[in-house]
């Protein structure tokens, strides 16, 4: 690409902002893969899960990655909110009737500007529930660890909480379904041969996350009912 002399402000640019949003979104999708895989360790019992959670909080490399992840999340959320605010300004007077044909299926009726902030709200509750909450501890071979397993299981005993989680996961699925595809379009990736592949990957990823993340709270909730 030729170097051209033009004034370019990355944060004022509607397109570049979208590209940053796309890149951070794809990173978060990558994180969710690890998150889901890690959570499946819940099915291997308290000790395996608590040890895994302990490593996640104490390994120096993972601590650095956690900071990076927090930065990516914060950037994605703040930039997203800024874009929503600017887009609102672009149409100050709404239509009395708006009915436009949907190309991306009826899912796209639920806009990213709705799912995004809702997921942010969930995320804040979620990290205060599990990441920052002071939990009871357990002792494995002389090492004190947080008993995250029990915290997760007891959180998922409340029908209200479980319903909230499931609803939030559906929003994550919708957000990811559009976001994954949209990220590629924002970068300018468009090819007759590969478009279908990107769409299918978006379907597969969002479905996997929804099924996986819904299954976990539901399983522990139902187990609680069976036991009582």
């Amino acid at each position, binding site marked *: 690409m030729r*170097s051209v002399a033009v004034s370019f402000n990355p944060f004022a640019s509607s397109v570049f902002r979208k590209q940053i949003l796309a890149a951070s979104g794809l990173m978060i999708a990558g994180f969710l893969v690890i998150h889901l895989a890690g959570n499946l360790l819940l099915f291997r019992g308290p000790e395996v899960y608590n040890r895994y959670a302990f490593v996640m909080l104490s390994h120096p490399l993972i601590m650095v990655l956690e900071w990076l992840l927090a930065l990516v999340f914060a950037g994605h959320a703040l930039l997203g909110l800024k874009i929503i605010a600017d887009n609102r300004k672009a149409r100050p007077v709404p239509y009395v009737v708006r009915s436009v044909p949907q190309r991306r299926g009826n899912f796209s009726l639920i806009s990213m500007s709705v799912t995004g902030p809702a997921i942010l709200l969930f995320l804040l509750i979620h990290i205060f529930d599990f990441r920052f909450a002071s939990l009871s501890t357990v002792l494995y071979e002389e090492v004190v660890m947080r008993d995250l397993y029990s915290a997760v299981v007891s959180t998922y005993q409340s029908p209200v909480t479980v319903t909230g989680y499931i609803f939030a996961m559906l929003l994550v699925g919708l957000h990811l379904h559009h976001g994954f595809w949209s990220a590629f379009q924002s970068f300018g990736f468009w090819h007759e041969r590969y478009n279908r592949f990107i769409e299918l990957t978006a379907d597969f990823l969002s479905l996997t996350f929804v099924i996986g993340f819904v299954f976990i709270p539901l399983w522990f909730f139902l187990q609680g009912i069976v036991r009582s």
Partner: protein
Amino acid sequence: MKLKLKIWRQASKETQGALRTYELDGVEPDDSFLEMLDQLNQQLAATGEEPVAFDHDCREGICGMCSLVINGTPHSRVSGVTTCQTYMRHFRDGDTIVVEPFRAAAFPVIKDLVVDRSALDEIIAAGGYISVKTGHAQDANDLLISKEVVDLSMDAASCIGCGACIAACRNASAMLFIAAKTTHLGVLPQGDIEQPTRVLNMIRKADELGFGSCSNELVCEAVCPKGISVSNIARMNRTYLAAALASRKA
């Protein structure tokens, strides 16, 4: 046909507008939408009421002047046509039809259904041209361009600049319009030289004018009377990214 029309009436830029309801009888199925509005205006003039102001020029789908949002869709639900090429046979006797102006911060209402779309001209002035001295006509075979590229450029050039993409977009984004203009010019050798600056400057201008950003919902493509493809937006996005990263201070 007998129709109930709910039409946006607004006396000027400064005043508040509202939907007003009118009854119109004797509409023929083969009347165009604009001919139907002409009949309404005759009826209004007869009773001494101010006729409804709306934009139109060629009335054959090529100039891009007509600009109505019909029952919530720019240029109506009939796909691939402008408002002037929408016919009353697509509606039913007794229908209620809501007619609003294109809505965007960058398209202020001037009167009734007429909006100021000169923001699109400003975007064109920011880079939608080729600055080459024409000189003598050179031999046709000096510049070889494949049929594929010519088609790409011609398809994009069919954009009539009506602004329906912006009117339909949730964010009032002008991306499909700019993508059509930059593809039309930029894929040809004459336009390729200025393409990075063109893309950066036209998008910056649109941002300054208050158009929103693209959420890739593809509604623009669905309402475009000329069927301009969103693949043009992808092409522009990748040019933009490369140009932005390579740009020097002006």
